[in-house]
């Protein structure tokens, strides 16, 4: 027995392929949407992974440093280093800002890190790590900078010496790693006008500008421009020590908030993306319904166009199941064509998206299963119409 569906598809392949392209684009959008969601999750996770930390120590009663702002004195890490079970503890700062690059504003997350400590860029794809303790930076390749270019952060220019990949904030902004001291200064640094007017304001305050206390004003102004705060302390736990126990100890004895990897995942992945997950989930459901409607409409129309042939087929003794199978196959075939096109376009246009789009093979398989179900459902209406065709219609006009 020959495959009627295959012959039918081959016969009207142009119509079929055009329809398949339309459906494929829709499936491509669906897959991309799923990819965008996966990308968001991965962005949040990669931020945690890249920190190479087991415990995050942040300001008490905050959920920092990613979900909330957090500020700690920068000497806290010393007391944490002294706790049993701590392998490494390093200060780190995060702040988001716009940097100018080739006349365009790029939103980046500036990370202040200590060389060789948790929080430093984990690996590079070009260039080298920072060797000077000031004015050198490693940037994520997504920020668009090239090696040797200068990036201006607040008042200073930093030379890009290395490029990293997949180092992004939970919002997907590329990271720029700069030495901690610079970052501390930059985080609280104002522009020159603000500094000058701040100085004038202080000078105009008689409490700070006392003629009989020379040097007081200068001292006050110095203290206003320096920062000794960081956003978090990243802690690595010694082998065979329990991170949760250490976090609990830090919380209890140091009066700081400490989160383990699992806690951070809960905060920055689950909570942060809960709404987005619902949003995109709903969107996927709608896209699925739309796809179902489209496939079923197309298959129904195609079947109606073949009513006479179906009547003849029935008259000459073709089984109903054969006819149903033909329609189902055509529907599945359409789905498959759509899937292949959709997967192709999703893969092709994924890198163009400004944010990370992660196309998981598992999602593709799930998508295919959904398409199979959708196409089966979509063919039901057409099959019912085909089964209602009376073979007698072929006789007598």
């Amino acid at each position, binding site marked *: 027995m020959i495959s009627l569906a295959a012959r039918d598809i*081959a016969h009207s*392949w142009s119509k079929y392929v055009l329809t398949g392209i339309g459906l494929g684009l829709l499936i491509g959008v669906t897959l991309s949407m799923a990819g965008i969601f996966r990308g968001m999750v991965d962005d949040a996770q990669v931020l945690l*992974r890249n920190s*190479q930390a087991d415990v995050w120590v942040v300001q008490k009663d905050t959920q920092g440093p990613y979900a909330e702002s957090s500020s700690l004195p920068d*000497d806290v890490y010393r007391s944490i280093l002294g706790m049993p079970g701590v*392998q*490494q503890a390093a200060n780190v700062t995060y702040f988001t800002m716009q940097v100018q690059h080739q006349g365009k504003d790029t939103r980046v997350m500036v990370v202040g890190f200590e*060389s*060789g400590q*948790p929080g*430093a860029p*984990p*690996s*590079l*794809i*070009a*260039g*080298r*790590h920072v*060797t*000077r*303790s*000031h*004015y050198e930076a490693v940037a994520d390749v997504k920020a668009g900078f090239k090696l040797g270019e200068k990036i201006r952060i607040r008042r200073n220019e930093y030379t890009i*010496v*290395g490029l990293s*990949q*997949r180092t992004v904030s939970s919002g997907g902004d590329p990271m720029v790693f700069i030495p901690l*001291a610079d970052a501390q200064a930059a985080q609280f640094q104002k522009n020159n006008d603000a500094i000058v007017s701040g100085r004038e304001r202080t000078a105009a305050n008689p409490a700070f500008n006392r*003629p*009989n206390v*020379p040097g007081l004003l200068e001292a006050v102004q110095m203290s206003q421009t320096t920062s*000794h705060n960081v956003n978090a302390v990243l802690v*690595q736990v*010694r*082998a065979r020590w329990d991170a949760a126990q250490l976090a609990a100890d830090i919380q209890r004895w140091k009066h700081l908030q400490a989160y383990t990897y699992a806690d951070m995942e809960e905060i920055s992945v689950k909570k942060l993306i809960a709404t987005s997950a619902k949003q995109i989930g709903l969107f996927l459901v709608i896209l699925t319904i739309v796809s179902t409607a489209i496939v079923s409409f197309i298959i129904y129309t195609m079947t109606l166009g073949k009513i006479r042939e179906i009547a003849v087929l029935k008259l000459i003794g073709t089984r109903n199941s054969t006819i149903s199978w033909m329609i189902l196959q055509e529907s599945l*075939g359409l789905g*498959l*064509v759509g*899937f*292949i096109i959709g*997967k*192709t376009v999703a*893969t092709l246009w994924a890198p163009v998206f400004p944010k990370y789009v992660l*196309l*998981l*093979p598992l999602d*593709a*398989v799930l998508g295919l299963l959904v398409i199979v179900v959708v196409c089966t459902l979509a063919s039901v209406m057409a099959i019912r119409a085909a089964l209602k065709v009376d073979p007698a219609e072929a006789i007598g006009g």
Partner: protein
Amino acid sequence: MGQPCPPLLFIGFLTRPVGDEPRISVATVTKQAISASVFGIGTVEARYNYRIGPTAAGRVQQVLVDVGDSVQAGQTLAIMDAVDLDSRIQAAGLAAERATASIASANAQTKEANARFTLAQHEAQRQQSLAAKALVSPSSSDARQQDLAVTQAAVEASHAAAAVAKKEQQRLQAEQQALRQQQANLTLTAPVAGMITSRDAEPGTTLVAGQAVLTLADPQSYWVKARIDQSLALGLQAGQTASITLRSAPQQALPGKLVRIEPLSDSVTEERIVGIAFTPVPAALSSGELAEVTLQTGQKAAALVIPNAAIQQQAGQSGVWKLNPDNSLQFTPVQTGIHSLDGQVEILSGLQADDTIVVYTSKALRADSKIKVVAQL
């Protein structure tokens, strides 16, 4: 039909690695020269700053120089208002003159007392001899003796008065001297040759003692006070050559020399403070300008060297991913020595020359990662 078989295409799609396999680029461990340098940020400042002001509270009368003026040692820079100082000097002079007169008067009194004493002496000797011959009564002789004592006391008293007058004169002269000195102090002069860096008070301003009217710095004493991260400070030694880059001229490296490592570190910023002298001092330096300092701390002619991008952290251990000849990966802990500023690292142990190591990776590696070696990522 000549159409591609959809199932095959489809299987190809699913199994296609979607950027799953990490792409890496590799390098070979080489033996080469490496020089260690440290980098720090500092400000240009004068090594010595002279804050010139009055020694006593007073009002500024005149400021003769302005910021940027070069001055010679001893040059008058500013004058404080004398107020009543001249009158006080005059009063002290008059008092001293009066003291001189008092000395003369005391001297006259001494002379008189001496005369009376001599007379009393003669009288007493005569009476004594008469009394010995019993020509006069003993009481008359006693009276003469007493006169003698009285006149003697008068002589001593006049001596004392003269001494007091002398002292008074000296005191008043000293006082006048002091006031003259003070008058001299009202003129603020340059202690060394240099340049005025700030002008802090204008004529009419009343200052307390210790407040400065002008700040003077010697441009030849300009140096860079730099802060070096403690973790990089190993190997710093006075005398090491340095290169200094000023913020105003980022392309130009100025020669310098490490002249001082301060014994005290900044415990808050965890930095060492060092002084780097310019060799020679360039003209038109601006105090307070930001400067970047690179110090040569040491070098080795032949060391095992790898790019620092290859160093990775695994479970708190520094190491590199070694690519074995059979294309398998192996994490090898290493000990590092010199870090050069251009991103090279000396390997003390853990690697051999000609080992192949992973430098760049597109993803975090694991020992069982399937990898793809590319020339450039």
